[in-house]
């Protein structure tokens, strides 16, 4: 029998937006737009360019959060100018009332969700390893520089801040190596 706090991944479709009225990941300056991304047109635009989006639900079908995973082509700076495919998490969020839940870190929703996104990114890396390019090898995400709680959590997951980088609206970028993924059942102990 599945654990009480086991989350399930449900592929997101436009029809799910009707279920998401009131979905909020918090009222901090760096949280308010997260729910809007999922409830508005941004998520649909992102899906159009290849992003996969999941809702994460409890066994009782309560929506705990959502996550997304896509790829992007980034150019090396001149004079090189060639490009590299990277995996990226455009947006991830947990409904405010599930923050820090459940207390058991083994089943903490945030870890289950990030574990899922990294696992899916590693599948992309594995598929890429069979091609000549061996890409993507990095998974990146963007976080507001003042969102200390999120930065600490991503660090606990293994992400590292890329020093000296600031994207639009005071966002910093974090990276994780996914290039050594081996099989579907690869588990790296904490």
């Amino acid at each position, binding site marked *: 029998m599945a654990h009480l706090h086991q989350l399930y991944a449900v592929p997101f479709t436009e*029809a799910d937006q009707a279920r998401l009225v009131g979905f909020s990941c918090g009222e901090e300056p760096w949280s308010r737009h997260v729910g809007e991304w999922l409830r508005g047109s941004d998520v649909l635009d992102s899906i159009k360019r290849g992003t996969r989006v999941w809702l994460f639900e409890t066994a009782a079908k309560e929506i705990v959060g959502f996550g997304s995973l896509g790829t992007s082509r980034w150019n090396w700076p001149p004079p090189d100018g060639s490009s590299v495919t990277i995996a990226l998490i455009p947006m991830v969020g947990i409904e405010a009332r599930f923050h820090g839940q459940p207390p058991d870190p083994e089943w903490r929703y945030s870890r289950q969700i990030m574990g899922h996104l990294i696992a899916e990114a590693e599948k992309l890396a594995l598929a890429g390893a069979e091609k000549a390019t061996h890409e993507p090898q990095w998974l990146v995400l963007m976080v507001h520089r003042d969102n200390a709680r999120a930065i600490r959590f991503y660090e606990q997951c293994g992400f590292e801040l*890329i020093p000296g980088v600031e994207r*639009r609206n005071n966002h910093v970028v974090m990276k994780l190596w996914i290039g050594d993924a081996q099989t579907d059942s690869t588990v790296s102990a904490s």
Partner: protein
Amino acid sequence: MSETFLLDDPQAVARLDSVACILEWTRSMSVPDRKRFLGALVECSDDVQRVVVSLLDVVKDPRTTPVERKRALMTIADALFLNPCEEDGQYGQDLAASEAYAAARSAPLALEVRKMDAQEETFAQRLRELMAAKQISQQELADRIGCSQPAISQMLRRVCRPQKRTILRLAEALNVHPRELWPDIEVADMLDAVASFQQDDYTMTAAEATALADAANKNRPKIRVKSLPVRP
């Protein structure tokens, strides 16, 4: 217009097609109407632009009935503030009716409309509070931002929806940050940041290139990496 103003952004260039369609469609309008429509479309908020584009999809859909098409076009005119606000209340009713129609067309659109409603209510309330706190009359505020006193009155009574440009001017005139009047200006900026993060053809900075080329520092996951069971 400087050279750097026109960025050679492939994502933006790909959208030229739809821009061309809108330009082509407006050719049948009179010159002043066309200028007014295109001007309003450029100046309105991203939210309103999205609603207008969804409604244009309805307009051009061959399954749309003539009555539906007319109502969609009326909604566009309302959203862009192109209809006259002459008689008290009348405009507001039309706006309410056309928004209800727009909301019935699609769930995401309904969400957009609800979101705008909430923002508009907050806006009117905050504008009222700021004017009271700073003891500024409707006429004084109108003079400061270069519009008529009835226009201010309509914004306060939520008869007419302000455009982003107007919000920015009001904020300047009241000496407050625009987000004090329209909180979601910040949300819109954040969503823009997310959209730009996903764009292809981004050229890395030296710091990013150094970090991603660093073979000695391949930080691996530190948590259990496992796909969750999928439920359809």
